[in-house]
């Protein structure tokens, strides 16, 4: 156990600090930022399962996020049940959607797969926006706050631990994919599918499974997010910008690593909350500015620092070891 902890030093620090913070800090704004960092990290880790570990780069993960968010919101507002049931329904639906996209991944490679995931998310966006009778259309759904665990009406501290739990689950899944038999086989699929097939690996099943798992985790985060933020709007939850955001954190932090998505999230989400605080009179229009920054960061990182923050950290550690 101690060897495991030592190998995962970074994670211990990150998650440990997150766990301890609510005990020390009371500032609501700070805790809110922490919740967002953890949720975005979890979302990027979920994306990483498909993108980084299975090599299926999707720019359409907002599909699953939106399904989760809407399932939770509708379950509460339309069916009068609790959000946890909505979360469950969202997971089931997202796994279904993930299976469809997984099948697409077997027929399409690289950029074309990515394009098709964008198409998928936009089909959902338009469909949900137009289905006024059921989903309240493009106006979105406000999600009521009712205190209590069953209704996910938590205080700031409660949300920190909720988000931390999800983050840990996603992190654990990633670690499992690094160390397990399935994980190694998935690595083979990612590196060279034909070679992996020749070694007895059922590449199709693994790819579809990875995408479905990634979808389920993303959906869970979406459901929680809906309850946390309190408003679900189709043009946001199914947007391409959102999908790009999931990938962005993982890439900046280190795409093939377990902690990478969280490192990326820490950097990006902190930057965003800082900017938002400093320029508090920004409207939606100026929100575009940090998207411009993200887009530029994506271009630069992917070209010049492809291993991301985690890779840089590993290089520094190796240099110290040799010194």
């Amino acid at each position, binding site marked *: 156990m101690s060897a495991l902890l030592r190998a995962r030093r970074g994670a211990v620090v990150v998650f440990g600090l997150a766990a301890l913070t609510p005990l020390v800090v009371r500032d609501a704004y700070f805790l809110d930022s922490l919740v967002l960092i953890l949720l975005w990290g979890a979302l990027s880790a979920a994306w990483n399962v498909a993108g980084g570990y299975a090599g299926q780069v999707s720019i359409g993960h907002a599909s699953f996020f939106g399904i989760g968010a809407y399932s939770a919101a509708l379950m509460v507002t339309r069916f009068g049940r609790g959000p946890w049931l909505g979360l469950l329904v969202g997971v089931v639906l997202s796994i279904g959607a993930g299976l469809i996209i997984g099948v697409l991944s077997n*027929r399409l490679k690289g950029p*074309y797969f*990515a394009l098709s995931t*964008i198409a998928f998310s936009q*089909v959902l966006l*338009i469909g949900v926006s137009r289905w006024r009778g059921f989903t309240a259309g493009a106006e979105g759904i406000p999600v009521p706050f009712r205190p209590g665990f069953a209704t996910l009406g938590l205080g700031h501290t409660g949300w920190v631990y909720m988000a931390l739990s999800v983050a840990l689950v996603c992190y654990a899944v990633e670690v499992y994919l690094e160390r397990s038999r399935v994980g190694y086989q998935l690595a083979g699929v990612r590196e060279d599918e034909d070679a992996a097939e020749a070694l007895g690996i059922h590449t199709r099943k693994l790819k579809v499974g990875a995408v479905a798992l990634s979808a389920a985790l993303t959906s869970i985060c979406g459901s929680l997010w809906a309850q946390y933020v309190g408003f679900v709007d189709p043009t946001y939850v199914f947007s391409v910008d959102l999908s*790009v955001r999931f*990938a962005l954190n993982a890439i900046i932090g280190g795409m093939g690593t377990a902690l990478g998505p969280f490192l990326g999230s820490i950097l990006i989400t902190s930057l965003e909350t800082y900017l938002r605080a400093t320029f508090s009179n920004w409207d939606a229009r100026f929100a575009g500015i940090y998207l411009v920054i993200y887009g530029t960061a994506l271009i630069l990182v*992917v*070209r010049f620092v492809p291993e991301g923050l985690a890779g840089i950290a590993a290089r520094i550690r190796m240099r110290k070891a040799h010194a």
Partner: protein
Amino acid sequence: MDPARRLGPAQIDVLAQLAVATVLLGGIYALISVGLTLIFGIMRVVNFAHGEFLMLGMYLAFWAFVVFTADPYFVVFVAIPLFFVVGLVVYGLVMRGVIHASHNVQIFTTVGLSTVLQNVALVAWSGDFRFVRPWHLSTVLRAGSTIFNLTQVVASLIAVALTLALVAFMKWTHAGRVMRATAQDREAATLMGIDTDRVYRLTFAIGIAAVGAAGVLVAPLYSVYPTAGLQFVLLSYVVVVLGGLGDMLGAMIGSLIVAAVEVAGSYFFGVAWKEIFYFILFILVLVFRPAGLFGQRGAETLGV
């Protein structure tokens, strides 16, 4: 419909109207797609930002109209050299570095570019829907019992003219031949002494000029907003896949087919369907006919 019942005059009118609409629309889609098929066919890069250059063309038409009351059909001739230069710059800054990189790097680079362009537009001009309404938008032409709108006709004609000019360029100039050779076999081209970097630069610039010009032309026909490019980019990928990578004639035929499906679909299922249409069609074509209509090199292998 009862097959025994012969086509009466009413049905023929409808068919004629749909046919005209298809041709008009197809001409415009051809101009959008022809640039993409060149970029994709020669450089073998999937440009996720292609639609954003179209969007910028639309905004160019809008601002020229609002500030100078310039008609889009004159602006288009300014747009061509302007976007050509833009293409050169973007190639140098962004594309050149990733031509030989892995798929993932190319995807994220052009996705990043797309995000940047969309949001620059958002910040600069807000997300409000804009409209370009030149005088000819309300002018209706009649031929027999078919009616169409002058704007559409002129846009189509200019688009087709530009597309044909491009085809002629590819076929009869030395530069065009060199580009086609590079499309067929990158390595052989290098061995023959072709400077592929220059070919790529020219290709990209031409592609962006074409799609920017197309943006100016379609501005009066659609709403102008920062994410307007998205629907067009997916549609043009459908055309490119159907027609075959790098095949300009295929892009033109593919454009007609896509236009036909859209026109027929809107007629039978209503205009609201049109928005989803592009995306569903994209998925369907890729899943069922990735090798294109003519059995060309398939999308799924993306033989890079």
